[in-house]
């Protein structure tokens, strides 16, 4: 009996001295393992006289339970201490920077195109794609800009080699004719895409830029509808009501043609964006010219429509305050990563 008490006291002492779970396991092995002390005690029992056997077994078991209990207590205490130590956060530096996670990005032109496509989609517009290398017929002829029309000069066209039938499209307006060829009226369509003008490049001009054309064909379309639709559109883009004004603008494929100005959304009384005028020229638009409807196979007495053009590159620049249009197509990761 006294033997066991001493053993237990020694075991308890060892348990109490343990500072880690590993050390605790070693003590557990020493006493309760396969070849441990308790196992040894139990192994001796068969050799004892029969009358001593039950008591010896009982005592060995009591010893085992007592050690187990000491281990459990110590284990719980160590766990508590570990948590407490974790929680004390010694050595934690809250100012350490987070590791850099590389992420993918969508081009800002894609982002604004999507936003607009979704906006138009919600208003019943389809999205149409058109070629960048375009037939002269679609880019000019069918848009009421016959050969030798002075408006061709201002288009600064890139001409493709060959029989003179192909140009790099100077605007997304060819999509108007393509839309009339592929949809049954009434319809609404927008056509985003790349356009090209033979221009010297600088911070605000690039020979390649993105536009989005819009076309609505229906019966009884009027200037009043155009104004309403443009206001709705601007509300969708700028998320608030902007005062707009229509003024005459000449584009051969619309009649009457307009420039739509909106109150500068960036200032109250003049800033660099609006060149101190408080108006920004936002989109050219107009009622589709009867000749264009005819070129699209529609009878202008029955069908009418309005068309408009949005400068996507310009909207992106306005939105992100980008000071040089050439960043947009420069393939520079330092630029692309920001969006």
């Amino acid at each position, binding site marked *: 009996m006294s033997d066991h008490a001493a053993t237990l006291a020694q075991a308890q002492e060892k348990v109490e001295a343990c500072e880690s779970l590993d050390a605790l396991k070693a003590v557990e092995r020493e006493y309760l393992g396969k070849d441990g002390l308790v196992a040894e005690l139990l192994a001796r029992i068969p050799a004892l006289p029969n009358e001593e056997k039950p008591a010896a077994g009982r005592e060995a078991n009591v010893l085992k339970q007592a050690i187990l209990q000491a281990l459990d207590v110590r284990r719980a205490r160590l766990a508590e201490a570990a948590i407490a130590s974790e929680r004390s956060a010694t050595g934690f530096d809250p100012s350490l920077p987070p590791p850099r996670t590389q992420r993918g990005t969508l081009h800002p032109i894609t982002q604004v195109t999507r936003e607009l496509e979704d906006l138009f989609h919600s208003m019943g517009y389809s999205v149409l794609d058109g070629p960048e290398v375009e037939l002269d017929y679609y880019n000019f002829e069918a848009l009421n800009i016959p050969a030798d029309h002075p408006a061709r000069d201002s288009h600064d066209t890139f001409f493709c080699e060959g029989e003179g039938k*192909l140009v790099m499209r100077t605007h997304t307006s060819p999509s108007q004719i393509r839309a009339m060829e592929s949809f049954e009226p009434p319809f609404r369509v927008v056509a985003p895409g790349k356009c090209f003008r033979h221009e010297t490049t600088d911070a605000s001009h690039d020979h390649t830029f993105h536009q989005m054309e819009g076309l609505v064909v229906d019966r009884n379309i009027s200037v009043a*509808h155009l104004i309403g639709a443009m206001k709705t559109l601007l509300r969708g883009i700028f998320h608030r009501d902007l005062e707009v004004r229509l003024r005459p603008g000449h584009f051969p494929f619309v009649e009457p043609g307009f420039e739509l100005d909106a109150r500068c959304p960036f200032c109250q009384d003049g800033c660099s964006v609006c060149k101190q005028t408080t108006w920004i020229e936002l989109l050219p638009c107009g009622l589709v010219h009867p000749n264009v409807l005819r070129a699209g196979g529609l009878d202008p007495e029955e069908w009418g429509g309005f068309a408009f053009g949005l400068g996507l590159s310009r909207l992106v620049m306005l939105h992100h305050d980008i000071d040089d249009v050439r960043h947009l197509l420069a393939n520079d990761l330092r630029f692309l990563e920001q969006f």
Partner: protein
Amino acid sequence: MLISYRWLQRHVDLSGISPEQLCNDLTLSTAEVEGLERFAPHLMDVVVGHVTHREKHPDADTLNVCQVDVGSAAGDNAEPLTIVCGAPNVDQGQKVAVATVGTVLPGDFKIKKSKIRGVASHGMICSVRELELGEEHDGIWVLPESVTVGQPVAEALGIDDWVIEIDNKSLTHRPDLWGHRGIAGEIAAIYGRSLESLSFEWPELGQGESFPVQIETPACSRYLALPIDGAVPEPSPDWLKWLLLSVGQRPIDAVVDLSNFVMLDLGQPNHTFDRSRLSEEGIRVRMAHAEETLRTLDGEDRPLQESDILICSGDSPVALAGIMGGEDSRVAEESRQLLLEVACFDAVTVRRTSSRLGLRTDSSARFEKSLDPTLPEKAAAYFVRLLCEMQPGVTLPAPPTDVGDWSDPAFQLTLRPERVRADLGAELEDSEISGILERLGFGLASQGEELRVDVPSRRATKDISIERDLIEEVGRIHRYDSIAEKTMQASIAPPPHDPRRELVRTIQDELAGGARFNETLGYSFIDDHLLEKLAMQDLPHVQIQNPVHQAQTHVRRTVIPNLLGALESNRRLHEEIRLFEVGKGYIPEKTNERGEPTELHLAGLIWACAPPVKGAAFDDNRFSQLHGVVHTLLHTLKIKDFTWREAENRPCWAHPAKALEAVCEGHEETPLALVAALDPALYAGLGLDGDLASDVAAAEISLDALLEAPRRASHYEAVPRYPGIKVDVAIALSEDTPASAVEEVIIKAAKNQFAGIELFDLYRGENLGEGRKSLAYHVLLQSDNKTLSDKDEQKFLKRFEHLIGEIGGELRRG
């Protein structure tokens, strides 16, 4: 185009309309006003002074010390100012322009009090050049006697003016607005004021023989020639000089100034020849011959073509019709005999010649807009009437020659007021509609419900041709901002399903999302040098005739070259680059019946980083990784049963061997995607060597093929009820045996328990022997009806060992 506010007042009363208001209203009804500036603003600061006393400077012979009275401009107790002046023509009693101390002259030149050779000077007496009003600088500017001392010079001379700049582009369709008279007409219509009438009566004409003129080309529809005698090269009167100055024209002499004035007032270009230098045969208007040249007034020799209209004296060219006169017939100083030309030339012909020669003049800008053919006679009469008023010695020895095959373009249109209201969406009264049209100079007559509209010749050459054009006239004068917005009435239906757009979005989202690529957009033109570097220069490309840069004549066939071209600069700054672009390519050798080149819709991907370090995992290379990205993308797109094969059409940039393409069963001719390592031969040329040594792979995805490819139906696979077991196998086998053969064996050995396979190592080493490799797989076995045990694993391994032996493989034991 510059318009002078004061000039406009010759034609229309502007009282009560400020320049700002005028600009705003012109912008909203007629054409975009780009700018409004005060004419010679410093003339509001420089004041009239009276030289009361002049004496020689005590210490300098060439300087004068003047006492100049500037009245109240010098302050209340108006002592005359002492000003030292170097001009030889300054004299006592003169009225002069004085810049007092503090005044800022052009060139940011601030007048300060100064001491000149010991004498204090309190200002400056200005020359014409110092005020930027002319080139003369050999003396000070002497003002007329009548001006009031102390007043700002601009006010004293009555030349305070505002210059309005109108955007030329917004006038391309309005030949009638290329002069002050036309703009004044718009203003009269906008404000409902009347336009001053002008006299186009001829002054007294002599009865001599008219000057001979012969038109030999239909490109000149009218030619009016009038001999003028006795004109002297004297300066124009002040009123004319100031008007010209206000719109940026330097006054020269009466004849030149009047020629400009008539053009800037009526919009009709005209030209004066020295008649004494013209042949007696007279004027011939003909097309140029090839190889002919003409030295124009600016001293340039112009090579001509058969499409250029020439004015000839006899047969020698004297002017490039409608663009610029020739140097040889320039009016000489001593000339008293002139010939005035006012003509009508074909707009397209003039435009072509002027663009070809890069010679845009005020004259060509007007002719190319299609001028009113009735205008030349009015303009000629206007010219000579003003000349006779200015120089009473001028005589007109003969009536004008007026030849040509032209007709008055005035015509009639029918306008339905109902249609005006419908198109504008505004409830305009009939009277409002007709009122606006009348104010704009259209003649009107009622015809039942409709209006018969007489379109005057000045509007009939270009702008107005159909009813809709008249509706625009009504709309813009009524003002679009007074039209209330309306909501369209239409049925609400979702737009048709658009698989192309959905595909583009999914690709963008997958690549920018899970694959963490950065989307870029590139130019459609590629550098010739880049094509050479990629050995693509011999492929057919759509070519640009007039590139911005000589080395950018090609329109891309695919998007990959742009991406490869962007590598070097990006690699300098980034360890790793993952870019993709969704864009188009053009294949000129395949065109449709309309001549359009085949358009490819593509997504290009590029992945580059430093080469893998020794001992890196077998698949730690860009080709394998990119292969994984594209494979996952095709899987996400639910492409049905696609497989990878060695690329059959390897692009120029691709590694000769490491190039794979994905195809769909039944669509083997149109691969969905190609993934390849970059050809090792190209790295150095692309700048990817040395510090920038890289491992690069690229992929090209055909959106066109993806749209055609069959898709898997979305369906759910039951989650297994019993746990599976993962068995790892490593097989040593010959390099010649492809991994696919091993995978077939695994599937065969696993029988119906096969649930998945994953290659986790590819190893080559001496211990395997020459020409051998080791592949290691995780194999997942699963059963529908029981939990698999060790026994099942052993059975599988036994079968596998046997089967793999048949293809020369050897199961390696741990």
